[in-house]
């Protein structure tokens, strides 16, 4: 084995060892729903500039 091949071999081995299985699955919908509940808390609450007398609201 040449030095070059040896390095390549080591590199390939460490790369292979570093790989983890990539899971494909349904989302964690319970967690995603919990995240969306943050939206519920914001729903209907207009975004305003506290330092301004003229409020900037979520209106078109």
């Amino acid at each position, binding site marked *: 084995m040449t030095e070059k091949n040896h390095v390549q071999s080591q590199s390939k081995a460490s*790369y292979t060892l*570093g*790989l*983890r*299985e*990539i*899971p*494909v*699955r*349904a*989302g*964690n*919908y319970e*967690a*995603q*729903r*919990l*995240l*969306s509940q*943050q*939206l*519920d808390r*914001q*729903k209907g609450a207009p975004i305003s500039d506290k330092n301004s007398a003229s409020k900037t609201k*979520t209106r078109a």
Partner: protein
Amino acid sequence: MTIVVSMKVTDGIVLAADSAASFFDSHATPVKIYNNANKVFNLVKVWPIGAMVYGSGGIGTASVETLTKDLRLRFRDQNDADYGLNRNAYTIQEVAIKARKFFFEETYLHAFNPPPTDFFMGYRVCGYSAGTALPEIWEFLIAGLRCDPPYLIQAQNDFGARWAGENEALDRLLLGGSSILHNVLTDRGIDAPTARAIYSDLINKAGAPLALPAMPIQDAIDVARFLVETAGKFARYGLRPETIGGPTEIAAITKHEGFKWVARKHYYAADLNRESDHD
């Protein structure tokens, strides 16, 4: 493999997905990845019903895209007692139940005997039931021998992003932590209920919804595109195969405009094929 993202706001739903199709050897190692798969579909042309697929991209000898277009023909056939949809009375749950019947009972169980134990496919149905003001999202999974009835992902009054497939990048970005956090905690001797409570606390304190229910549909489109592209770049730059990638396909479904493509790819030039309706 895949990332699919739906963004549900009061004005409609955005469907977005990458285009990677990965092929594996017998050791589950990716040996080839193509970046031109189609994963977003209009289930009945122009009607406000769409679908997305993740996991397996085909069943037997047919791609999920081709099978979805087969199913679309049956949905439109008013004389088809098993699959025809009544435009004035259909529901998204009904569409999901019929899609499950078509993919699992009619296609999957006939294509495989016995069914492969390692098969996995998620199919998400999004849209408006007839006469309703807000959309909803249903989904079913085929996993080996099993395919439970479709379950509700988001009711009409639920909003925000829902993602599936290779979830790690978006779990970290939006939920605030990796999905393995629960296992890390239990490995340290923390009991499961406490580990779940810590994860929920993390989401509440570090979560980033990136959306408001009343945000304009164009902004929901922009967020969905950002999420798919972020997951793709996470795969691209990580020390791992690029199993998320290729063009980002996007469609939006709104009450009055129905299903509209926002970004999609064709294998042919539209102006050279004027006889086609480019469905």
